[in-house]
């Protein structure tokens, strides 16, 4: 039972429909067979009674005249060895006299003239008892359970006096082939109907189950494979399954949104943590670094003389300066006091990256030029745009194309930098803005970290879309009009 309950709807619905169809077919067949059987029995009874009556009427005179041969001939004439319906053929016909002795029969050897059928015991004895019980002028149908025959008995009545009886014995067995034939016929018709109906029912049942199966299949994808679940083909009907499909689509949409938010938050939090850590480290490094550089400068200025020491200190100074630069790059500090960002800044930037672009034969396309100056720190914005442009040129295909666009509105500066070429793989995406996360050999990999830090400090937002052939960095930065 459990196995049945666990069965897929793919099978369960069609099987149930098949069951219903088969059940109906069987019930109808059974009803038809029962009806036919009843009719057959009634026919047989009616036939037997009418034959018995005719024989009884016809046999009165031969019995009165003790004319055995004529009685026998009459019985013979009532037989039809080539009958179409053998079950309508009486197996044995007995004519008895008033004392229940055989007057004549169709089986003279079994029922010799003058013998008593009751002396054979069994059924015929009971027939006699049955005859005693009823009025002598009534017909009777007797069906003894233990006999292979059932009997129709009709009295031979002349002027109200019973001369004897005509007893027709019908074989119950000869009735069987006809009945089996009937059942066979009904079964055949049922089978034919089923052959026609079953495939339709099966297809129909399968189609009924399909939307549910699609829904179940889509649900299995949640939550690991939300994108597949979202794109699954679900029923669009307005019935309950359709509503379920709609609800499911909504749910998957919300789940996906939530997951994206979570991912974003994770990145943001991690970046913030890195920012705090780098700031702390930079501070801790900067203090001794400043002291060390000052000490070297002091020595160079006052204690010069030893060329080996000078050479060593010069080496130390270069190294320490590099550390300072690196730390400075990590620790982006917003200089709020700056001039506003001008449209000419963009022209400057394009001139700055022109050499790089030429080297890689990348075309830079400028969309939606800025029309006025914005109250945002020009140095920082230039830094952001420069980093993004250089990244884009490096990522673009040889001879490819980079687009830059800037728009303003609702107190927001929105810009995007877009390049063709290889896209950023998913696994790199999560760490894209982290320092030293770059996959490139050139540079430190601090460019995007700096961009992120600056945008963050300016209270803006940053987004990346990367698909094969198109990688776009978008940023929005709020500003306040004077």
């Amino acid at each position, binding site marked *: 039972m459990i196995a049945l309950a666990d069965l897929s709807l793919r099978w369960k619905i069609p099987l149930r429909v098949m069951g219903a169809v088969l059940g109906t077919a069987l019930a109808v067949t059974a009803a038809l067979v029962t009806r036919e059987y009843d009719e057959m029995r009634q026919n047989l009874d009616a036939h037997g009674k009418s034959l018995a009556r005719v024989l009884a009427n*016809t046999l009165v005179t031969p019995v009165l005249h003790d004319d055995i041969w004529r009685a026998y001939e009459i019985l013979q004439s009532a037989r039809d060895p080539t009958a179409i319906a053998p079950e309508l053929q009486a197996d044995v016909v007995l004519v008895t006299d008033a004392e229940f002795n055989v007057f004549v029969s169709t089986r003279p050897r079994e029922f010799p003239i*003058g013998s008593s059928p009751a002396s054979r015991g069994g059924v015929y004895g009971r027939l006699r008892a049955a005859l005693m019980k009823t009025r002598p002028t009534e017909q009777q149908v007797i069906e003894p359970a233990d006999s292979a025959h059932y009997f129709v008995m009709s009295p031979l009545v002349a002027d109200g006096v019973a001369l004897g009886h005509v007893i027709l014995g019908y074989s119950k067995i000869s009735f069987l082939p006809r009945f089996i034939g009937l059942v066979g016929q009904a079964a055949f018709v049922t089978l034919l109907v089923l052959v026609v109906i079953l495939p339709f029912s099966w297809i129909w049942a399968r189609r009924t189950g399909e939307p549910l199966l699609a829904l179940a299949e889509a649900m299995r994808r949640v939550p690991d494979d939300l994108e597949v679940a979202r794109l699954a083909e679900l029923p669009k009907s307005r019935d309950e399954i359709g509503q379920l499909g709609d609800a499911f689509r909504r749910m998957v949409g919300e789940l996906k949104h939530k997951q994206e938010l979570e991912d974003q938050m994770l990145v943001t939090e991690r970046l913030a943590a890195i920012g705090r850590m780098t700031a702390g480290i930079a501070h801790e490094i900067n203090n001794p670094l400043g002291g060390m550089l000052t000490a070297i400068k002091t020595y160079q200025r006052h204690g010069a003389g030893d060329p080996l020491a000078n050479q060593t200190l010069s080496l130390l100074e270069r190294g320490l300066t590099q550390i300072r630069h690196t730390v400075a790059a990590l620790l982006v500090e917003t200089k709020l006091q700056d001039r506003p960002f001008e449209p000419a800044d963009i022209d400057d930037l394009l001139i700055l990256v022109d050499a790089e672009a030429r080297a890689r034969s990348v075309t830079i396309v400028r969309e939606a030029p800025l029309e006025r100056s914005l109250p945002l720190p020009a140095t920082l914005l230039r830094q952001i745009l420069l980093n993004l442009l250089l990244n884009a040129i490096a990522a673009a295909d040889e001879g490819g194309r980079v687009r830059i666009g800037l728009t303003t509105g609702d107190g927001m500066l929105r810009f995007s930098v877009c390049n063709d070429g290889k896209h950023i793989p998913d696994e790199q995406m999560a760490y894209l803005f982290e320092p030293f996360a770059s996959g490139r050999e050139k540079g430190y990999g601090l460019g995007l970290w700096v961009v992120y830090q600056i945008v963050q400090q300016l209270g803006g937002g940053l987004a990346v879309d990367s698909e094969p052939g198109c990688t776009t960095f978008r940023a929005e930065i709020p500003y306040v009009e004077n």
Partner: protein
Amino acid sequence: MLRCNLLRTRNVAEIEAGAADFALIIIAMNAGDYSSAGSRRRTFLRSALAVAAMPLLPVRAETGVLRIGLTPVFLDDQLSFLTRWRVWLERRLKRPVVFVQRGNYREVLDLIRGSKIDFAWICGYPYVRYRHELRLVAVPLWRGRPYYQSYLIVPADDRKSNSLTDLRGKVFSYSDPDSNSGYLYPQYRLTAMGENPTTFFSRNFFTWGHRKVVEAVGVGLADGGAVDGYVWETLAETHPALTRSTRIIERSPEFGHPPFVARPDMSAAGLQRFRAVLLEMPADAEGAELLHLLRLDGFVVGQPSLFDEIARMAARVRKI
């Protein structure tokens, strides 16, 4: 009433062109509309009534038409044979011939004694009873001689009975009370044994035909029966299945074969003419073929003394 009608469809049919054909047509029509066993039987009964209701041609001695009465002393139920014989007789006699058949010997006897028919083929027993009235025309030759026997038969599966005495208390079947072989001889045998023929058997019945005696004994309806030996032997050739179900336990001495007789007032010329035709049968190709179908060799004039033995038995039986 109904009983008689049923049997008349087989025995009564007057073998006269019109009547016989009409009866056959009715039977054929009935055969066509059988639908089920039940309705078939009812139809059969109805048709029997129809045949009975059909006015049979009045049996009168009309000028021109020769009426010949037939009885079951031979296999008189072969309608196609009778038609051929009738046509042959008409051609030879140059006048229309009508065969008249009845349910038993008695009716045919009444017809010939009353001169309602011209000739009749009857049994030797009624002939000897009325030989002062009837005139002997010809006696058939069976196996070259004008004699036949009575056979006492029992069912083939009865292995015990070997003589008439073994049948005491059994059911016995006679053919016709006016038959020598089928009634008189067994009656005579019992009488000669000192038995009372009316009580010797527990039951007896008449089948009104020798062939039916064979049937009755064959199916076991009767434990024994008396039958015309000539009919039995002919059946053994034409319907061996019938005779195979019976066994002969006694054969009687030879008796004069059932003769053709003429009505009391038949003219000598008419008698001679009919006798001549019968005697000529073997000489004619068609006649010989008809005789062969009857399993007879021809006819002889025959002497009334041929039937003296039957007369003796009849006298003995009648005394009791």
